[in-house]
């Protein structure tokens, strides 16, 4: 309950913060529409040459694009800016203020920044997803939707944990922005089904940079491709990643305070 009220407060501040620079709204809108336009253009070109890509129809890939935009929107709404802020706080020493607050520090740093206009990406993602589903004649059942939400959550948890671990590295190495840039470009690979990539890359995108679980798996749920195996792996991996990233974060904090030395 208290966590929710705190999240709401941080969102409100995020809105206030962005209202200070109103132009950002239009810039973001333009940027989101442009990237949507290019993505759909790309899809159109690919599917003018072929009917299916790695077993996916055009409309399924459109749904995948919706998921890609939605998840990307959530990452850029809160996860990425908050983690960037963490690195900044460590460098400037302002993390000390967070650590002297009577709340869980991981929770505080994870929601510290909200770039509210990124919700445009989230809404556009939902719109694209719905368009794809309507195109297909809304042929999905209630279970599919439930499973979709489930694997979307586990995927989100996996991606969040992954980000947290990357950002936690900052306790040992002060400058790690470059790693984040690499992640960003890897994430871009998620706009296509993981199955179309060569083996080694598929491995990388599944386990090293867990884009597969965040995007491909949820999209599979919507097109009836989801295997029980994927569901189980998603759940187990998300629990493991949440626990492991928390342990890693605590480890980083210990290093920060000199408790590990």
């Amino acid at each position, binding site marked *: 309950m208290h966590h929710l009220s*705190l999240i709401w*407060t941080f969102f409100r*501040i995020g809105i206030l*913060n962005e209202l*200070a*620079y109103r132009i950002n709204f239009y810039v973001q809108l333009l940027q989101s529409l442009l990237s949507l336009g290019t993505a759909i253009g790309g899809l159109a070109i690919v599917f003018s040459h072929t009917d299916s890509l790695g077993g996916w129809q055009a409309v399924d890939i459109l749904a995948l694009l919706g998921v890609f935009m939605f998840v990307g929107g959530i990452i850029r709404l809160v996860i990425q800016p908050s983690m960037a802020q963490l690195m900044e706080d460590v460098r400037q020493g302002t993390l000390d203020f967070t*650590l*002297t607050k*009577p709340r869980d520090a991981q929770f505080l740093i994870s929601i510290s920044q909200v770039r509210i206009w990124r919700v445009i990406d989230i809404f556009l993602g939902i719109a694209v997803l719905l368009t794809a589903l309507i195109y297909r004649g809304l042929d999905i059942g209630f279970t599919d939707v439930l499973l979709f939400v489930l694997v979307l959550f586990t995927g989100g948890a996996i991606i969040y944990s992954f980000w947290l671990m990357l950002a936690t590295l900052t306790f040992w190495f002060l400058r790690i922005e470059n790693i984040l840039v690499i992640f960003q470009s890897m994430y871009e690979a998620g706009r296509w089904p993981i199955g179309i990539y060569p083996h080694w890359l598929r491995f990388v995108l599944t386990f090293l940079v867990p884009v597969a679980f965040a995007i491909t798996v949820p999209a599979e749920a919507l097109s009836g491709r989801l295997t029980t195996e994927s569901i189980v792996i998603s759940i187990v991996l998300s629990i493991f990643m949440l626990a492991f990233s928390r342990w890693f974060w605590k480890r980083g904090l210990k290093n920060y305070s*000199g408790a590990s030395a």
Partner: protein
Amino acid sequence: MATTPDITIQNLRKTYVVPERDTGLGAAIKSLIVRKTRDVEAVKDITFTVEPGEVVGFLGPNGAGKTTTLKMLSGLLHPTSGDISVLGYTPFNRNKEFLQQITLVMGQRNQLIWDIPVGDSFERNRAIYRLPTDEYNHTRDELVDLLDLAELLPKPVRNLSLGERMKCEVAAALLHRPQVLFLDEPTIGLDVTMQRRIRTFIGEYNKRYNATVLLTSHYMADVEALCKRVIIIHHGQLLFDGALTELVNRFSPHKTIVVDLDIEQADLSNYGDVITAEGNRITLRVPKSETATVTGRLLADLPVIDLTVADPPIEEVIEQVFST
């Protein structure tokens, strides 16, 4: 007096392990492979206690270990050895009840959010500290009143002057009405008026809530106005712990005598060290034990209009302490 101290520190030590490398490109490349480290003892063996409601000045030159000690007290750093207890808690466990009762103000760093109105930053702290609305409103109004913040609340932080920002920082750090305040250079970089303002406020807060304050400052005026007791550390070790007046007695064997004479340019060098001689006002430094004799001689020998005996300025005394 059977009160339990708010702060107890015993044989506290903190050693940092810092990477070390020679200057130059070659050394930089070498350090990628073999990391040489060196131990730096920031705090070595410090022991003291602070009673509830005390305001203690924590002094020392840069790098003496003040900030390190404050960080250990507020749970940010893990001591290498020794015991710390604040309000009965071990700070490093970062117990929620403990953190709810302390605050840390660092004059060089800000916790307010740059782009939003000050009042909204306050709201953020209200949410973080889970303050009930009436309690929060009450404390906020009180702080706004004491620090004269009413006009600043709707302004974004980036539009505030340094002094205004610091007033807001202090208020934000006290919204949860902490019992123990760790203030690290709260007046740094402020002009004299603003320094006095913050200083008076800290004194007022201490009286009103019987809060315990541990304060570091480079401005002796802060210390003189607020702290009856000072703790001085140097090279990580405790040099002095006691009343400010005792510090002057112990470390300054001299007194200053200022005389106004009816004659110009008198030579008083055989009465004591002449520090300044401006027209007919002369300042002398004499050994403390001879103060009475010298004063007597001056009054007997010369046409004295006015004469005052004073302790040397506290800055001078502190300098004396660090040079020993």
